[in-house]
């Protein structure tokens, strides 16, 4: 930041609109503002602080010029405004802070609660563009927590050099060198990482792995079942072939031929009957599907009975239509043509009739329902008859099949009991193969049931896996986010101390260099140390800590050296604005500082009394002064005017 210009309007004793332009010339980078005590140096210093940060003011009511208030009428709005133009990193900015209040009848002022802070960025073509985040931008340029190290009261500057000041030194380094930014960044990243981990714990179930394992297991079991089914099919085919061979052999043996042929006939017939039975079962199933009519049959019959009864009693259709009664009521005239009054007994009677009669539409619907129910009764009857017939056929078929089975059993018994050993043996083998086929079929049936269940299970697991995959994708993303936040926090943690130590050592070296330039007892003070405990120590020629013995002036020089060193190490492009910097300094230190300070800062703004800057100190500074002003306090009006001495 390099200050360009300040404009004040009705700010404390600066009545009206007054302007001051700072020197920006790198060779003449000093702006001197003279004023006797009470002339308004501190007010001008305060105006810079207030404009940039809205801070440094204990009572905002005292900011508005008393002269401006006294000239205003009760009820009139009075305002104060400070505008500051500056450049930073090649960009030009214009910031302004405005505060207004209304003059009260008793002469006091009621301040509007909030001041108005705006920041504009000036484009290359002179157009101003409003900065949307002025506080954030200001924090990036020169944060408020470091302002006191660049804009400071010279009379309080020796604070850093006091023996008990290590906390202040640490705090200054902490803020100016962005250690506070690092600490906050690390803490907030840790918090975010912890939050991601908590969320991860919530969504993470390890479910996907388990589901995939279950699906793999189910698929494996299905494959095994299918393989076993194929194996069984091969076994069945083999058993069938063996049975066919046995049948052929039995046909060839004279004593078995007739029985074998009989068996073949029975088996053909049995096959035919079983086929018929399957078809019949399908038919019965079809009838049963539409049997709701049969189930509803009693209810339908009851509904029809009620409707018929109402018709017989003459209630449906009703004798008198609702519309007819409505017409009589509207005409207030009886059927006989005799008129009647509203609310008369005749009128009430017609209203009662109206309420007890059916609307015409309902009557039609009741009649339609009756017509629709009758075919249902007939259909139900037909279905019932069809079902009874099919069931009877089924019983007959089952009886026939049973009879054929018994005949087959008889043939088997005869063959097995044959006196010819070969016939008996062949039949026994045949029965064994037949039993094997039945066992295989049973096992195949069980396998089919299991495969069907596995198919359902696999399909369901597939759905669950898709769902879990989505959850796992979220889990993976959260894991990466948590890891990144944590790695960033850890990186800051690791680098913090490296950076802090490096900065501390650089400040130590820079402070020593500047202190040696500024102090007149440079051979007495041998070293400056800024330890890891942030204790700023001066070491004398005996190698002993000398800070307790430092004079007030020496302490001020040490503090100034430290502040200037910090500013240089921080690399912040910022002005040094010092209010009464030389008040407590002896001439040697004053001369030394005025000789070296302009080289140590990018821009130097000094608020001084005439006594502070005279003789050699003045001569030292003279070639570096680019702008000079005098603050003229008018005793008659108690107002200060800025007088330009040099620009």
């Amino acid at each position, binding site marked *: 930041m390099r200050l360009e210009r300040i404009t004040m309007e009705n700010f404390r004793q600066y009545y009206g609109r007054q302007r001051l332009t700072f020197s920006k010339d790198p060779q003449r980078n000093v702006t001197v503002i003279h004023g006797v005590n009470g002339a308004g140096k501190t007010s001008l210093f305060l105006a810079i602080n207030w404009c940039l*940060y809205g801070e440094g003011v204990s009572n905002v009511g005292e900011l508005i010029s008393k002269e401006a208030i006294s000239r205003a009428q009760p009820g009139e709005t009075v305002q104060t405004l400070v505008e500051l133009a500056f450049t930073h990193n090649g960009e030009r900015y214009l910031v302004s802070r405005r505060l207004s209040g209304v003059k009260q009848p008793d002469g006091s002022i009621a301040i509007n609660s909030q001041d108005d802070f705006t920041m504009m960025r000036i484009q290359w073509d002179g157009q101003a563009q409003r900065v949307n985040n002025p506080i954030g931008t200001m*924090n990036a340029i020169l944060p408020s927590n470091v302002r006191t190290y660049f804009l400071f009261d010279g009379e309080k500057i020796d604070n850093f050099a006091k023996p008990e000041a290590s906390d202040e030194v640490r705090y200054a380094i902490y803020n100016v060198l962005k250690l506070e930014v690092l600490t906050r960044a690390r803490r907030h990243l840790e918090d*975010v990482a912890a939050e991601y981990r908590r969320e991860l714990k919530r969504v993470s179930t390890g479910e996907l792995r388990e589901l995939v394992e279950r699906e793999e297991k189910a698929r494996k079991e299905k494959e095994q079942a299918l393989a076993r089914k194929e194996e069984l099919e091969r076994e069945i085919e083999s058993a069938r072939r063996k049975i066919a061979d046995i049948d052929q052999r039995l046909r060839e043996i004279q004593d078995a031929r007739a029985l074998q042929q009989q068996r073949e006939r029975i088996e053909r017939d049995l096959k035919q009957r079983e086929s018929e039975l399957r078809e019949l079962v399908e038919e019965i199933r079809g009838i049963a599907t539409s049997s709701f009519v049969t189930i509803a049959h009693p209810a339908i019959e009851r509904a029809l009975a009620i409707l018929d009864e109402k018709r017989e009693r003459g209630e449906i259709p009703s004798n008198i239509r609702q519309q007819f009664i409505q017409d009589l009521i509207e005409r207030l005239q009886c059927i006989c043509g005799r008129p009647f009054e509203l609310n008369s007994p005749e009128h009430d009677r017609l209203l009662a009739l109206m309420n007890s009669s059916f609307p015409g539409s309902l009557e039609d619907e009741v009649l339609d329902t009756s017509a629709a129910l009758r075919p249902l009764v007939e259909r139900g009857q037909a279905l019932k008859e069809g079902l009874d017939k099919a069931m009877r056929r089924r019983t007959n078929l089952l009886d026939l099949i049973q009879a054929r089975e018994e005949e087959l059993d008889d043939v088997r018994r005869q063959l097995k009991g044959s006196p010819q050993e070969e016939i008996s043996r062949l039949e026994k083998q045949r029965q064994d193969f037949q039993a094997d086929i039945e066992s295989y079929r049973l096992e195949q049936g069980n396998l089919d049931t299991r495969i069907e269940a596995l198919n359902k299970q696999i399909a369901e697991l597939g759905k669950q896996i898709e769902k879990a995959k989505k959850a796992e994708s979220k889990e993976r*993303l959260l894991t*990466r*986010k948590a890891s*990144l*936040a944590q790695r960033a926090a850890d990186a800051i943690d690791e*680098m913090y101390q490296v*950076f802090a130590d490096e900065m501390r050592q650089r400040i130590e070296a820079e402070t020593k260099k500047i202190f040696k330039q500024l102090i007149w007892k440079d051979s007495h003070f041998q070293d400056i140390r800024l330890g890891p405990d942030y204790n700023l120590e001066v070491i004398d020629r005996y190698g002993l800590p000398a800070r307790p013995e430092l004079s007030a002036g020496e302490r001020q020089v040490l503090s100034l050296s430290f502040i200037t060193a910090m500013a240089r190490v921080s690399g912040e492009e910022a002005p040094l604005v010092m209010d009464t910097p030389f008040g407590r300094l002896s001439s040697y230190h004053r001369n030394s500082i005025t000789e070296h300070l302009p080289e140590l800062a990018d821009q130097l703004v000094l608020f001084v009394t005439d006594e502070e800057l005279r003789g050699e100190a003045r001569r030292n500074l003279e070639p570096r002064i680019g702008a000079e002003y005098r603050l003229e306090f008018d005793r008659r009006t108690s107002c200060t005017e800025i007088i330009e001495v040099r620009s």
Partner: protein
Amino acid sequence: MLKDRLLELFKKYEQDVQQVVAEVLTLEQEHISMERPRVKEQIKDIIDRVVKDEA
């Protein structure tokens, strides 16, 4: 510049860490005047973006 030196120190870390650190430090700097800045959501946005850019 101090910021440049600071970012230089993080060069040994992975690119994604460097990017997050740089952006979070800028964010924290912008909110340094607040005692309790509410920057968690903005930090999450940064991480979200860097993770997505990487994917």
